[in-house]
C-alpha cells in the first residue's frame, strides 16, 4: 500500500495514497521520512529558497535512505519566470542560482548527474480569448500553447480558423494519428486541439487569473546533459539512465523552464515531441521521459478534467492521476530510489520512486509538503 504523509507545518498525517483514508502507520521508515519533512518546511514556489529546499531535502533523505537512483526537479525559476517581472539580469541570476544548486547537489552526493532542461521561456505577447465561443474551450495542466475545444459551433470554427494568433487547428483524428502508437481513450480527447502561435497563450474558462509574464518558448528541442550521447529523443532518456544505473549511482535532474538557449551545462539537443507537437513543461513531459514512451493521451490537454472529479475518484492527492503508472523508471528499478522536487504533486506518480518528497502547493498557495512511500520493502 502506497502511503502519503502530509506535513502541513507542525502537523503531520498519514494517508492511504489510493483511497485517501487516514492511517496510523508509524513504521521506522515513515518516522524517518516524517522527520525529514519536519526539518525542511517548504518556503514557497516564488521564494528564492525554493531550489535550495530541493537540494537540502534530497541530501537529508539520501543520508538516511541511501538510494542508488535519485530523481530531482528544480522549478523555482519556472514559477518566477512565469509570474514575476524579470529583467534579463534577473533571469540570468535565476539560471545561475539553479545551476549552483544542482552543482551543490552533485558535489555533495557524488552521483552522476543526467540533467534535462524542460524548455525555455519567452515573454507573453498576447492572450487568445476563447471564452466567448459557443462551444467549450479548456486549458489544463498550466498549458499556454494548447487548448481543447469541445462541441464547437460552425461560428466557432470560423472564428478560430481566422484568428491571427492561432497557429493550427488539429482534429481529434489528426491528433490521434500523429501518436498512433500511443494507447488512447478517444472519448476523452477534445474534438479539436487548438495551437497558439509562439509567445501566445490561450485564455479559457477554468483558467487561473494570475498575471502571466512568460510562457514556454518553442520547445521542439530540449537540452540534456552532453554525456547522453546515445539520446536523440525524450523517449530515449529512460534507457540511457537505466544503462548508467548498472554501473553506478545516478541522479536524473529536471530543471524546469530552461531550454537550449540558456542551459548552463554542456548539452545535446533532443526531440521533445513529434512534428508540430512539443511538450510544455508538465506531467506529460515528465511521464514521457520516465516511461520512455509518448504520453500525450493519458491526461490529454484540454480534456474535461472536472467530470472525473467525483466522490469515487481515487488518488485524491495526485492531481490528474487516476492510477500509478506501472512502468515509470523508478518503479521498475530494483535498487533504492527517491524523488524530491518543488513542482506540484505529480512527481510521486511520474517517477514511481520508493520515496518521493514534494511541495504541496496549488496556484502558488503553499500548504506544506507531501511524502509518498511506494515501497517499504527495500528499507
Amino acid at each position, binding site marked *: 500500500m502506497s502511503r502519503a504523509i*502530509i506535513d*502541513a*507545518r*507542525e*502537523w503531520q*498525517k498519514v*494517508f492511504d495514497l489510493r483511497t*485517501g483514508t*487516514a492511517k496510523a502507520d508509524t513504521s521506522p521508515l515513515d518516522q524517518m521520512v516524517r522527520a525529514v519533512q519536519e526539518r525542511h518546511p517548504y518556503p514557497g514556489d516564488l521564494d528564492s529558497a525554493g531550489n535550495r529546499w530541493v537540494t537540502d531535502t534530497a541530501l537529508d533523505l539520501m543520508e538516511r535512505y541511501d538510494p542508488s537512483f535519485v530523481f530531482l526537479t528544480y522549478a523555482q525559476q519556472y514559477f518566477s519566470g512565469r509570474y514575476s517581472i524579470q529583467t534579463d539580469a534577473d533571469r540570468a541570476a535565476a539560471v545561475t542560482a539553479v545551476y549552483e544548486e544542482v552543482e551543490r547537489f552533485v558535489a555533495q552526493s557524488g552521483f552522476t548527474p543526467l540533467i534535462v532542461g524542460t524548455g525555455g521561456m519567452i515573454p507573453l505577447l498576447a*492572450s487568445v*480569448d476563447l*471564452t*466567448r465561443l459557443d*462551444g*467549450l474551450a479548456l486549458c489544463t495542466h498550466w498549458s499556454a500553447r494548447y487548448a481543447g475545444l*469541445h*462541441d464547437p459551433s460552425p461560428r466557432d470554427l470560423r472564428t478560430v480558423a481566422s484568428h491571427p494568433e492561432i497557429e493550427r487547428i488539429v482534429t481529434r483524428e489528426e491528433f490521434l494519428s500523429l501518436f498512433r502508437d500511443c494507447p488512447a481513450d478517444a472519448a476523452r480527447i477534445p474534438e479539436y486541439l487548438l495551437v497558439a502561435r509562439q509567445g501566445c497563450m490561450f*485564455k479559457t*474558462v*477554468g*483558467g487561473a*487569473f*494570475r*498575471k502571466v509574464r512568460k510562457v514556454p518558448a518553442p520547445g521542439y528541442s530540449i537540452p540534456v546533459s552532453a554525456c547522453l550521447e546515445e539520446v536523440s529523443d525524450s523517449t530515449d532518456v529512460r534507457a540511457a539512465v537505466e544503462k548508467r544505473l548498472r554501473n553506478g549511482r545516478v541522479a536524473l535532474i529536471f530543471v524546469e523552464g530552461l531550454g537550449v538557449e540558456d542551459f548552463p551545462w554542456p548539452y545535446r539537443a533532443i526531440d521533445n515531441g513529434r512534428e508540430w507537437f512539443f511538450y510544455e513543461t508538465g506531467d506529460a513531459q515528465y511521464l514521457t521521459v520516465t516511461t520512455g514512451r509518448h504520453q500525450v493521451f493519458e491526461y490529454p490537454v484540454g480534456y*474535461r478534467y*472536472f*467530470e472525473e*472529479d*467525483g*466522490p469515487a475518484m481515487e488518488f*485524491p*492527492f495526485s492531481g490528474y492521476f487516476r492510477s500509478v503508472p506501472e512502468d515509470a523508471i523508478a518503479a521498475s528499478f530494483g535498487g533504492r530510489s527517491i524523488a524530491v522536487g518543488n513542482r506540484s504533486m505529480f512527481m510521486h506518480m511520474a517517477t514511481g520512486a520508493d520515496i518521493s518528497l514534494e511541495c*504541496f*502547493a*496549488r*496556484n502558488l*498557495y*503553499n*500548504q*506544506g509538503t*507531501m511524502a509518498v512511500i511506494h515501497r517499504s520493502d527495500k528499507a
Partner: protein
Amino acid sequence: MQCNYCERRCDLSGGKPGVCRMYEDADGAIRERFPHHWSSCIPSRIESIPFYHVRPGSRALVIGTMGCNFSCRYCSNAFIAKEDPTLVAERMLRLSPSEVVRKARQMGCGSIVFNVNEPAMSFPSLLELAEAARAEGISLGCLTNAYTTEESTEMLASIFSFFNIGLKGLSPAFNRDFIGITSVEPILRNIRRLAATRHVEVTTPIIESINDNELGEMARFLADVDPEIPWHVFRLLPEDEMKESCYPDIETIAGALESVRSILPYVYFHNFVGSEWVNTHCPGCGALVIERFSLGCGGDKLKSFHCAGQGCQDCGRQIRLAGDVECAWKHGEVQR
C-alpha cells in the same frame, strides 16, 4: 454623491474613486465601472468553496470580479481584490449573463457561486446574472463579508439563495488593525438578517494569538442567530501582508474548538491538507452522516453521504441541507 452599497458609504462626487474603486458617479447615479468583467469562471466542487451543507457533491461554477471594500492584511486573493481594477480590467473575462449561465450548463454546474472578491462590488452585473440564472433554474450563492448596508443586504438576499459569510473577528481593535473597518456591527446585523430567510454558513479565519480568543464568543453569537448554522473555522494561510507570519498551530486551534462543539453542532476546521475536522455528524445520535476529504488549497470534496433524503440514516433527525441533495451527490451534475 454617496454610494450606499456598503457601509463604507463612500463619497464619489467629483470623480472620487471610493474604497473599492468599482463604482463612479455618473450624472447623479451610481454606475458600475466594469460591468460583466469576471476574474474567475471555473468549475469547482461545492465543498471547495466552501459550502458543506448545500447540494453535497455537486459542481458549482465559481465566478468573481475584482475590488474589495475590506483591506484584510492576510488577503489570499490580493492580486485581484486589492489591485487597482483599472489595471486588471483588461485581463478579465467579458461574459454576458447568458454566457455565464451557458458556461455553467456546459460544465455541468447546478449552481453559480460568487467567490474571489466581494459581491457588493458588482451589484448591477449580479442582478442581471441572477435573472438569467433563474430563467435556467440555476441557483446562485456567494461568499461575502456582509459589510453591506441594510438596503443592499436585501439586494443580496434577492440575488443569492445561499451564503457563506466571513465573520473575521469581533473586537474593534482586530477589525481596525487587520480588516480596516471601524465596527463589526453591520456584519452581525446582516448575518442575522440573511440567516432569517436564506441558507447561511459562516467562515472565520483564525490567526493564532490574535483572534482565537474570540472563538467562544463568536460561537455563542452564531448559536443565538441559528443554533444549527454551519461554521467553518479556517487555519489562516499567511498571505499578502502577513506572508512572514507563522502558520497557526493546528492542534491548539482544534483543541480550542472542542469547547464550542457543545454550542454549535456543525463546526469544521480546515484550509489545510488532510484535516480530520471536515465531517458532519448527526446532532441527534452522533452518527457520521457526511464524510469529506480536505486538500487544503486544492479544495475539499465529498467522500461519502449517509443521509436518507435530508435526514440521518440512523435516527432520522433532520440534517441541515439546502438544495437538491439526492441529485447532487449521487449523480454529479453532468448535463451536456
